[in-house]
């Protein structure tokens, strides 16, 4: 088995990797905050969130604050494990190339 197998295709994109990085250290983050941190447009962010949601790496929680919709995102156990594996793979590749 090659190390490349552990590289997660889903994380091979700057924004998806970014979303996951933020959710690893924050229990719950809302859409607006993600947008602020990643500096992306609504549509762009939404499509990447969808992709992560579909793979069950993140969960979506919809609620209302003062009757305004407030959608929060969080990483699932599966997502956390996948992200960790991906980081380890990145580190391994870099280590190999340094040799």
């Amino acid at each position, binding site marked *: 088995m090659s190390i490349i197998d552990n590289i997660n295709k889903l994380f091979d994109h*700057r924004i998806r*990797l*970014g979303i996951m*990085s*933020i959710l*690893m*250290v*924050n229990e719950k*983050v*809302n859409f607006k*905050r993600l947008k*602020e*941190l*990643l500096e992306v447009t609504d549509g762009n962010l939404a499509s990447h969130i969808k992709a992560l949601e579909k793979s069950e790496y993140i969960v979506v929680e919809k609620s209302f604050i003062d009757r305004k919709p407030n959608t929060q995102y969080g990483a699932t156990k599966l997502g956390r494990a996948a992200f960790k594996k991906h*980081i380890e793979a*990145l*580190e391994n*590749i*870099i280590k190999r*190339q340094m040799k």
Partner: protein
Amino acid sequence: MQKDYFKDLSEIKDLMNKSSRFISLSGLSGILAGSYALIGAGIAYLYILPSDVTIDHSANDSMIIYYLIVDLILIAALSIFSAIILTIKRAKSNEEKIWDATTQRLLLNFLIPLVAGGIYILIQAYQQNYSLSPALMLIFYGLALVNASKFTIGNVKYLGYSELILGLICAAFSGYGLYFWALGFGVLHIVYGALMLREEKRQ
């Protein structure tokens, strides 16, 4: 190829830091808070507290407590006010947002031990148990700092540990409360502020 993965890792780190850590308080606000505390402690020593403990002061005990509380509130208000002003000023020049989810979590984590401790100290004071108040203030303030330090950059954690240890020592040596209080809230803040200021200048 290699460069890309390096970039990935550094971006991950950057986002993790940016999303979870609040900009730290400036060194100057630490120095100011420490100075207010020293001045306040000086006022308490010179004008409020009885100079000779052997004389019976029970008659004006409640007045002394009243003045001490006013003194404390003034120190706290001035410290908070300067910290807010300096933080806003710095955030503006760095084009950072101040009131976001991270700040709210920082404040919440800071306030939980502090408010619980404050209420406990007041309950004890109401029952005329003042002797441990300085120690308890240091201990709960230290716990609040350690608790909040998870959301900040810098060495707030070590300031918290120092306050905590000082508070415990203070509890063991009753009668020297004011000195320990001045050391913890005055000197430690100034030392911490000076160290932070040096670091800020270096950057």
